[in-house]
């Protein structure tokens, strides 16, 4: 195994109960990712992209097989330790931004740092840095409702990046954005990937995203059908 490997998926199977039987969403996935990758899962709807991201993000556990993230086996983590893993090392970006509507941009980005129990002075600086990365320094006092979709997604990126996580998981981050905004945020993420060596994993069927990917993994019916660099 490579030295800088941070994620390994070994024969992961994920089944969901469905009616009387079961539905197999992931059917024996084997993959590894190294530090600083900019990779994405593509494939038709229902092929298991989100499910795989959830397993890697320790939001879900594999039914069989082993998913190891930063040396920790996701299936064996307690709820608390899974939370800690997410807290310390993972950042999430969602299709539907999921900003907290009652809080300002600044407070939204600050939130993960509160969970990390970072001192106030450090928090302020980190938040302003993160907002600068995504070009929203002038909007720190705005509420999400006052922002455009693209701006909201940039806030979400800042929120995922503010703690400089090792891995960022982005599920359809551009689905609600127009071409111009999609390129903007992808460029932002590419830059952050280069500067901070953050590993980015996408789930997408958006061509605009796919063009940016350094590695494209195709899923079909819960199986890896292609893995191109």
């Amino acid at each position, binding site marked *: 195994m490579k030295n800088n490997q941070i994620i390994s998926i070994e024969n992961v199977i994920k089944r969901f109960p469905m009616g009387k039987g079961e539905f197999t969403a992931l059917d024996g996935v084997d993959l590894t990712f190294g530090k600083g990758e900019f990779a994405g899962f593509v494939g038709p709807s229902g092929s298991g992209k989100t499910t795989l991201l959830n397993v890697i993000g320790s*939001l879900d556990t594999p039914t069989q097989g082993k998913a190891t993230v930063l040396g920790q086996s996701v299936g064996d983590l307690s709820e608390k330790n899974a*939370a800690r893993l997410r807290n310390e090392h993972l950042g999430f970006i969602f299709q*539907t931004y999921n900003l907290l509507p009652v*809080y300002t941009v600044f407070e939204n980005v600050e939130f993960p740092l509160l969970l990390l129990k970072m001192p*106030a002075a450090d928090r302020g600086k980190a938040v302003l840095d993160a907002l600068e990365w995504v070009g929203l320094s002038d909007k720190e006092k705005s509420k999400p409702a006052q922002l455009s979709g693209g701006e909201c997604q940039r806030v979400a990126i800042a929120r995922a990046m503010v703690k400089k996580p090792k891995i960022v998981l982005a599920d359809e981050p551009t689905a609600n954005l127009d071409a111009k905004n999609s390129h903007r945020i992808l460029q932002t993420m590419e830059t952050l990937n280069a500067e901070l060596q953050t590993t980015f994993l996408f789930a997408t069927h958006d061509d605009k995203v796919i063009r940016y990917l350094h590695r494209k993994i195709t899923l079909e019916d819960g199986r890896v059908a292609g893995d191109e660099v």
Partner: protein
Amino acid sequence: MKNAMLLFSIKGLLRDRSRSLFPILMVSAGAFLCVCLHSSMKGTVTDMVDSAARFDTGHVKIMTRVYNELADQMPNDLALMGVGNLLEKLKRKHPDMIWTPRIKFGGLLDIPDENGLTRTQGPVFGIGVDMSARHSPDTKILNLEKALVRGRMPGHKTEILISDSFARKLDLKIGETATLLGSTMYGATTTYNFKVAGTVRFGMTPLDRSTMIADIDDVRMALDMADSAGEIMGYTNDMLYDDKRMTGIADAFNRDFADPDDEFEPVMQSLGEQGMMRDLLRLVNVMVAIVVSIFVFAMSVVLWNAGLMNGIRRYGEIGVRLAMGESKGGLYRSMIVESVCIGIAGSALGTAAGLAVSYWLQQNGIDFSSMMQKSAILRSSVWRAQVTSVSYYIGFLPGVFASVIGTMFAGIGIYRRQTSQLFRELEV
């Protein structure tokens, strides 16, 4: 750092009206009702106790042992003798209390026409009260001056007060003569002429039907009861009943008169020891507890529902917070903290409003006299609330409990769901 998180939660609460305003209003409504309920029940009981004390039981009351056993029949043949002496002793021993003798008696009140023949007649319930002094304490204890409807207070020998409705029924006018037909302490029949000085209404149905109030010296003359009295009432100076203290005084008194063979020996009983007063007080406390529990339960259910709806609305937030690494326990705790804040804020608001209303009801009262014609319980027809120290915190019990319990139930959903399931729901 804990504070930063708490501050963050509170900021969110304040900004999100649906999370704060509605639950706070809910809680304050409940707290308000609890406070009002408590103070009005308290007021009712205090009023009942106070009325009973003034007219019937005293704070303590002395009778002979046998009189006590047959008290319902007003057996004046069993009355206390040597009352003057006993009063002297009592006043010396308890100078901080009011001691006053009374005689209760029954009989017929006969109203003669100008020829001295019976014009009308009716059974009467009489109370002989010490009205000798210009400002005798008992006149005040019975609120006689306030109760006066027509005429004036008795100032001369043989003058009496009589229930206003009784006077109307007998067509009795101020200044007319009324003859009491009764029996003396020794069982002989007696007639005695009184003169009506005024009419009274106490606002207490049992007393307002057919009562006459005479000076105790006249009653002693009429019933041949020199230096006797059916009862000696004792009251604290401030007219506030203290069960422990009064029972203590009664016990001490009874130790001095402990001859079990002498059934004419005086016995003293505190208000709590008479009739069902103590049971009544307990009953009321139990009722308050039950009603408050029902409130807690009902409000919990409502807040639980509100919490559930809120929870669904907040799946987005919950999902994001879990994704960012807050543990389910941490999330649950922060929701509980929020609910405590809401509980306290709502309770404070509701308690303030409840106290305002209760104080108003304590000062002004509501007159229910027209609705209480048939009541046989001795209580005044002006209903008042009473604010006690308990009124200040009783609203917080249901307020905070309901809010927290409601949130706890609502929050269980977070635990039961798979984290990824929460996401699935928030993405739809």
